[in-house]
């Protein structure tokens, strides 16, 4: 047991937590922005995937990592706008449209990679490079934390900046006010002349961009190539973090970070002689327990709202 403790307190473990949490954080913030704008973004997974694919392909062909990253984020942004358009212009159900976009991204990326590279697996045959890692000067000298922080990818830093950014956006800016009003009471927002649709489009675009950044991290930071369906369900974990975090920026931050930590722990415990499938349930069991405990505590503190109203 003490070895587990050693592992958990090591800087390598902390570094792993930061890495693993990066896509969760970004995608979860994407989900949060969309949810607060009143349109559930189930398409996080597809947006990540498209961004990952576009990023690797563009970087590979153009030789510019930056261009690749920007194109990846741009494609995911467009998918966010597309989701908003399907919902707002065509009146499609947001959840179904999101599922449809995920399917589209899965098929579309596979097709793009196959027709460009004649490889059904991914872009590993194309040299596309990674976004730079950043070491703040002097940060290595901080004990434990220093080693964990130094050399983290640019996107990881961005992911951690996303929390204060989204909090600032929501609670300090005019746009954030309008976004929250639109998501909570579209009629009220409309009645004061807020361009509800425009706010929702913008929110979904931002949501897509954040998810896109998460995707770009997967194919241009975590590893340096794209693999078919490489998001592997991360978009849905991010979605869970959105709700687990109570739809609040710092709550979502903690939830996504918690997922990162739990998964890092599962990875570290993976070599123990326990069936691997059972070890890999750790993050989810922990989440479920945390969810129950949190809800129980909140209930005990006596909320006025009945349970059913918290939908």
């Amino acid at each position, binding site marked *: 047991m003490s070895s587990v403790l050693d592992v958990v307190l090591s800087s390598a473990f902390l570094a792993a937590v930061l890495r693993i949490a990066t896509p969760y954080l970004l995608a979860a913030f994407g989900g949060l922005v969309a949810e607060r704008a009143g349109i559930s973004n189930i398409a996080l997974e597809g947006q990540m995937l498209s961004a990952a694919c576009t990023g690797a392909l563009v970087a590979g062909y153009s030789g510019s990592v930056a261009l690749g990253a920007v194109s990846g984020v741009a494609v995911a942004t467009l998918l966010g706008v597309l989701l908003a358009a399907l919902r707002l212009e065509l009146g499609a159900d947001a959840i179904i449209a999101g599922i449809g976009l995920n399917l*589209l991204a*899965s098929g579309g990326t*596979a097709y793009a990679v196959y027709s460009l590279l004649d490889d059904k697996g991914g872009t590993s045959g194309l040299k596309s490079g990674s976004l730079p890692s950043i070491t703040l000067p002097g940060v290595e000298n901080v004990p434990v934390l220093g080693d964990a922080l130094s050399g983290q990818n640019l996107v990881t830093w961005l992911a951690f900046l996303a929390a204060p950014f989204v909090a600032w956006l929501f609670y300090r800016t005019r746009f954030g006010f309008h976004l929250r009003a639109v998501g909570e009471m579209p009629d009220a927002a409309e009645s004061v002349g807020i361009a509800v649709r425009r706010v929702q489009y913008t929110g979904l675009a931002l949501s897509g961009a954040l998810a896109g950044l998460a995707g770009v991290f997967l194919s241009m930071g975590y590893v340096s190539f794209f693999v078919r369906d490489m998001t592997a369900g991360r978009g849905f974990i991010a979605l869970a973090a959105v*709700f687990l975090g109570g739809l609040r920026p710092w709550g979502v931050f903690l939830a996504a970070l918690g997922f990162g930590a739990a998964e890092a722990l599962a990875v570290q415990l993976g070599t123990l002689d326990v069936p691997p*499938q059972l070890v*890999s349930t750790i993050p989810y069991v922990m989440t*479920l327990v945390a*969810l129950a405990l949190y809800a129980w505590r909140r209930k005990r503190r006596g909320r006025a709202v009945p349970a059913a109203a918290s939908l």
Partner: protein
Amino acid sequence: MTTTPMTAIETEDRRQYRATRRRDFAVDLSMALATILAALAIGFLVMLATGNDPVRAYEVMLTGPLERSFRVGRWLEDATTLTLLGLSVAIPFRARQISLGAESQVYAGALAAATVAIFVPLPPVVAVIVPMAAAAAAGAGMGLVPGAMKARLGANEIVATLMLNAIVVRVYDYLVNGPLKASGSSAVHSESIQQDSALTPLSDWFGVPLGRANIGFGVMLLTAAALWLLINRTPLGYRIRMTGANPDFAAYGGIRVPRVIEWSFVIGGAVAGLAGAHLVQGVYGRLEPGLAGSLAFEGIVVALLARNNPLVVVIAGLFYSYLRAGGDIMEQQTDVGTEIVVVIQAVIVLLVTAQALPNLLKRRIARRQVGVR
């Protein structure tokens, strides 16, 4: 004044209201078809753009599933599972509970059905029913967890169900690879179920090969009808509907909302459990890893497509399964690759709930009538 006699205007209103309702229904129906056609047209363009022969591809996709009897069987078998899973989420959806838990429930159901059907010797007929009941019970139990967490603690059901899916799928995987794995087999699956527990294949009844389709199809139809009756013809159904419409109103009216929420999860879970039983007793005859494929997720599409109306879920399930089957046949018989098949299915899913067209048409009709008078 107590009762005012009905004025001319009121009579007119009433007539017009009824006419509008009739018209809206007709418009809804024809527009549903029109949206599907529009989606197919976009798929057509996708195929043209990717250098495929769309006419041939569509011919194969749309007629393929009916061409051979075993393909019909494959369609019905797939639709059975898919519809049951669609129904299983439609019920909590009616109570406005966003349950994504069909996956955990179907695997729990499959495990329970298989455990009974493999290990417990039972007389004929009972051997079919008991595993199904066990599956329904296991699914219901798996539904009760997020249901109770939501109802009693207010814990978000989306998170709870997503987490439970992840856990159950992994535990299932462990069991199929470990304790329940058929001994002496290198392939990963359980022992086969006892002969008596198998759901009778439809082939036996119709005398033509119908693949793995079995009387589970009938069970599915009965389940849908029963759920429709439950929702529309029972007090519990009323409570579910009102809880979904406005939980505060329901609570004010004396409905114990937490109970209703739990029931909606439990009933949904039981139905998903039945889907698991269908997979084990009708389709595979044993446990296999990942046996539900992506059906649990696609059940959500089917439920939403049908606006959570149990009878419509059957139609939506048959429709969606037909697309799945047609897409696979298209990939086998034409040069259209799997990726493009997925893209076309995606386009159909994206557009199939678009309501803009029907609404536009309705508005146009309404406006024309104003103009006439």
